[in-house]
């Protein structure tokens, strides 16, 4: 059923009780051309683009829990393409372009809101760094706008501009950045993929991989063996665990990242703001809650929950930037498990096992990449070689020295 204003009107006559299921829940078939492991945004987007762009429809998406129940449901919903390096910016900009047309291509409201993303700077050196970044973005066809203090005072009057240690001198704005509704992204891709014939199989955990003569043959799962011509892993957070089933060691550590939501308040933050003197980013959801986050906890973890020293540190950063936050109460916080790579950039491409493809290492940049990641991963799975946009994200870049270290901090995952 196509979603439209007319359809909403029609369904209203039956008090919205006759909407069909958004996607079907078929039993797994014995074998598929392509099996995607991981029913988050990236896995579902991959399946959708495999079916819609490459005509490969004998595809299954296996999810150990429920779709969108992992990091797709645990992020702070920020969408942007403000990267510096050549390996990153074209990819993220393509992803942002896909976001801009996503609702039309999925026929689903993902509540994409291009409300702008502003990175603050607090020193001359930081301004120079952001000017350089802004220029790199413009050269790659993205948008960027340098804002001085006067302009910022009009849009963000509540910042602590005259902070003694970290005065706000200005910011780099990407007006096309913003937020999207995270669950709707998973549901929209699932619905669109399902309509093209993709099988979405929930509560189906992969327990082993069968490899014959160096090529993938299929997967052992909690719902039996499923044969596969090709397998794509889109399980960021758990990439190392899945890859170890194929005997691979990855340049990845799993770390916990926390996020927070406050009680609902009247509209206050109508953009996305990031602090330049600490790691803190904040936006406001359409329900009114302030959504914010900051640094990793900093130690290996698969626990999906963090510890209080990091929570305190993040809130201190928030208070330094926006003192008015002190009166608002946090009502929920949670942790997500991040694939932190050794250079802070994702891995999308081939593995040493024929027919096994990896999409992971998203650090904490995964959500904004969802459509772009699915698009290039579908291309890579369909053609057996990476697209120009993800060619730099190859797994073997660590052995060839072609790392993409956006922050320049070296192989220390908890610093990226």
């Amino acid at each position, binding site marked *: 059923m196509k979603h439209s204003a007319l359809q909403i009107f029609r369904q209203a006559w039956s008090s919205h009780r006759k909407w069909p299921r958004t996607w079907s829940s078929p039993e797994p078939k014995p074998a598929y051309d392509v099996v995607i492991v991981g029913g988050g945004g990236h896995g579902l987007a991959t399946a959708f683009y495999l079916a819609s762009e490459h005509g490969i429809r004998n595809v299954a998406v296996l999810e150990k829990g429920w779709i969108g129940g992992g990091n797709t449901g645990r992020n702070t919903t920020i969408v942007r393409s403000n990267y510096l390096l050549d390996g990153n910016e074209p990819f993220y900009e393509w992803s942002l372009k896909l976001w801009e047309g996503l609702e039309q291509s999925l026929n689903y409201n993902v509540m994409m809101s291009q409300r702008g993303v502003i990175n603050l700077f607090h020193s001359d050196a930081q301004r120079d760094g952001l000017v350089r970044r802004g220029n790199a973005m413009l050269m790659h066809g993205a948008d960027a706008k340098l804002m001085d203090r006067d302009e910022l005072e009009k849009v963000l009057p509540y910042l602590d501009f005259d902070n003694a240690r970290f005065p706000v001198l200005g910011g780099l704005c990407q007006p096309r950045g913003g937020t999207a509704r995270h669950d709707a992204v998973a549901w929209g891709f699932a619905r669109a993929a399902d309509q093209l014939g993709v099988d979405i199989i929930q509560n189906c955990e992969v327990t082993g991989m069968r490899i014959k003569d160096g090529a993938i043959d299929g997967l052992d799962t909690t719902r039996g063996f499923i044969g596969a011509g090709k397998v794509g892993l889109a399980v960021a957070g758990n990439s190392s665990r899945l890859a170890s089933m194929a005997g691979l060691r*990855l340049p990845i550590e799993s770390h916990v990242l926390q996020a927070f939501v406050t009680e609902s308040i009247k509209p206050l933050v109508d953009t996305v703001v990031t602090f330049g003197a600490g790691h803190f980013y904040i936006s406001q959801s359409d329900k009114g809650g302030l959504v914010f986050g900051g640094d990793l906890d*900093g130690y290996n*973890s698969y626990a999906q929950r963090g510890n209080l*020293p990091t929570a305190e540190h993040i809130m201190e950063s928030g208070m330094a930037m926006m003192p008015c936050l002190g009166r608002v109460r946090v009502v929920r916080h949670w942790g997500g498990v991040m694939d932190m790579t050794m250079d802070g950039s994702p891995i999308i491409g081939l593995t040493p096992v024929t027919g096994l493809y990896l999409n992971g290492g998203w650090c904490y940049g995964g959500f904004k990449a969802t459509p772009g990641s699915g698009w290039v991963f579908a291309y890579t799975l369909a053609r057996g070689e990476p697209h120009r946009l993800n060619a730099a994200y190859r797994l073997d870049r*660590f052995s060839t020295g072609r790392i993409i270290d956006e922050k320049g901090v070296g192989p220390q995952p908890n610093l990226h």
Partner: protein
Amino acid sequence: MRRVWVHSPTCINSPTMRIPCPNCGERGLEEFSYRGDATVTRPTSIEPSSESAWLDYVYLRDNPYGPHWEFWHHISGCRAWFRLKRDTVTHEVLAVALAAEVDGEGHRS
């Protein structure tokens, strides 16, 4: 090697992970800094033939789901480096030893 239990796996009684420094005892997490996997070994050779050993040491990690030997530094305390065996799923601390005394597998040197 001392065996230390920091909190229950279900995390009901103590929501905060505390780190047992071999010198100072159990202290708050904010006093420590984290290095990472303590089971990788720095190659001694710089010959081209040791390239894959360097790749292993610098980049590749087991990243286990469960017990993990890791380096911690009591940066705001006694400044000792030590190895901690900690469960990455429950955050339970299983064992601790000064870095100079015990290797990544928990064997005394």
